[in-house]
């Protein structure tokens, strides 16, 4: 069972990575980041169930990760709203502050 779950997680991660790198809309980028995070969560759970030393720790750990991810998503959306107010757009291409 392990390889198919891991493949599933890898596919999820790649979709998330693709979205984070190519999507214009900042909201979609944020969603893609969450997708990557969840791919990792899936890995944690799979390993805790089918790994070399199965235990409950991995599943508990993923619960914590989901909590933190929720908080992070809230912060991310807050930053996004601030950015939208400042720049008047959600197009990621126009956020080039790092060059200045």
């Amino acid at each position, binding site marked *: 069972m392990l390889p198919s779950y891991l493949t599933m997680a890898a596919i999820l991660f790649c979709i998330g*990575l693709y979205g*984070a*790198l*190519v999507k214009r809309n900042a909201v979609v*980028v944020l969603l893609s980041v969450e997708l990557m995070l969840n791919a990792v969560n899936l890995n944690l759970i799979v390993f805790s169930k089918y790994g070399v030393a199965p235990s409950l720790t991995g599943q508990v750990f993923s619960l914590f990760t989901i909590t933190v991810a929720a908080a992070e998503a809230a912060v991310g959306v807050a930053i996004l709203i601030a950015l939208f107010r400042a720049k008047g757009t959600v197009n*990621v*291409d126009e*956020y*080039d*502050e*790092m*060059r*200045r």
Partner: protein
Amino acid sequence: MEFYTQSAWLIPIFPLAAFLLLIALGRSYRTTAMLLGSAGSLAAFVLSLLVLFERLGPDAVDYSIRSFKWIVIGDYTLRLGFEVTNLTSLMLVVITGVSLAVNVYSAGYMKNDERLTVFYGYVALFTFSMIGLVLADNILLLYIFWELVGVCSFLLIGFWYARPSARAAAKKAFIVTRIGDAGLLLAILLLFWYMPGHALDFTSIYNVFHEGQSGVMTSGITTFIALLILLGAIGKSGQFPLHVWLPDAMEGPTPISALIHAATMVAAGVFLLARTFDIVSASEAAMQTTAYIGGFTAIFAATIALAQNDIKRILAYSTVSQLGYMVMAIGLGSVSGGIFHLFTHAFFKALLFLGAGSIIHAVHTQDIREMGGLGAKMKTTAWTFAIGALALSGIPPFSGFWSKDAILTTALDENPVLFVVGLAAAFCTALYMSRLFFLVFAGKPRSGHAAVKESAAVMTIPMIILAALSVVAGFIETPWNGWLSGWLSGSEAVETVHGGSSIAAMVASIGVGALGIYLGWLFFVKKSIGSGFMAAKLPSLLRAVERGYYIDEWYRVIIVKPLRGLGSTLAVFDEYVIGGTVRMTGALTTAAGRFAARLSNGKVQTYGLAALIGCIVLIAVIVGRRFWS
């Protein structure tokens, strides 16, 4: 006892101090410069004379001191020092004496020159280097001073560097003599390699070579070293085939021609041969080569001098020819003959050059065809010049006769072919000197020099003194009195046993000298044979001789052109291969920079992509290494 000899190291210090002071003072102190330069060489001259007088006694031993450690490599120590021998002390007097005369003379000749102080500085530096050259106690120190005099020669030939011809002549002199210098350097390196204990001082060289070399070196190596030393002498003393720089060196101021290119520096090659005579004489082949090169140069340059029209170039070729005599004498085994001729030649050739300078100063041309009738207007110049010319032509009792006779006697004893060559050269010498003298001083002025007048006393007095020396200097060695050869070889006066050959050589030498002068008189005064005689009969030969047998042209075709071709090929290689690589490095860096600048556009997604690519590369490398190894 030997107080002055022990303080001989002071002699070069005086001109060196004069040089340093002159350089420090700057251009405005013109009178001070003349006084300083002359005072420096006067002090050196006086001390040299004292050293010479001290050494005239029969019990004079060679004095050398080498206390200064220069290079210490492991257990090998190279010491520097100075050595006073009879030969050295004689050279010292010649150098400082001529230097003093030229210093005084230049006060008149160069008095309107803007860079007078620089001139005196160079002359002082030259005097210092030349004294150092003869005092040096090992061959490496000699080489250092040898190069220094070369530099001074370069600076002074190119003294009027605004003239392109002077610049070209300076470069030519430097480059051509460099060929000889490279030979000398190789000889020194070989000596260093093969000498026991890597000793380079003349005493060790004497000990090794004088006693039949006792298996230290093979005869092949000895011959090779001797020939390389000869190459050094050929370059410096203007012997064939490296003589081409000396006539061109006449672009320098005339006092310099007298000091460097007639009396002292060009004689350094002869001095070198005399100093390393033990090496040269250890190889029969080298001695033969030396003798034949000298003999050939003597006749070769004398014939060229016949066809020259520039007063200084005649004297220059004459110098080359006379240096050929000296080299020939040494090649025939007569060091004292060579040094004796060096000694007398220094005086009368310096005198002739100073006279030529006086003439040029008065008429502002160097072409003897435009002169004429100067004898009446420049009496002092005329009679001093006449003494110099007679001495050079080998007419008794002037000094040149005795020294040339000494060489010719040796030649008659050792090698009749070279005796004939020497006689022919002596005939040519007499002929071109009479041509020069009669064209310049006799007859009527050939172009308007109304305002010609005698040069100032500051110029004529050195000439008069040199004229007096040219008369008497020959009597230190005559066929009846071998004082010089005995003194030079450090033994009691050797009984000269030339006998009949001496008389024969003397008669022949006087005969050809007189014949040459008589022919010159016929040609140029009485005009019983028209002076256009040669030009009408053999115009191509005359032109060939006038151009110095096209030696310069040959060099241009054989050496200069191929080297230039090689140079331009290498320049193309440099431009497109070396330069191309350099430019490509630059272009690559710029392109990389431009690419990186495009990447850093401030967008998070681009940075993320870059990070992703980097990550993939990293993983690929790590995984790939596992498969590869």
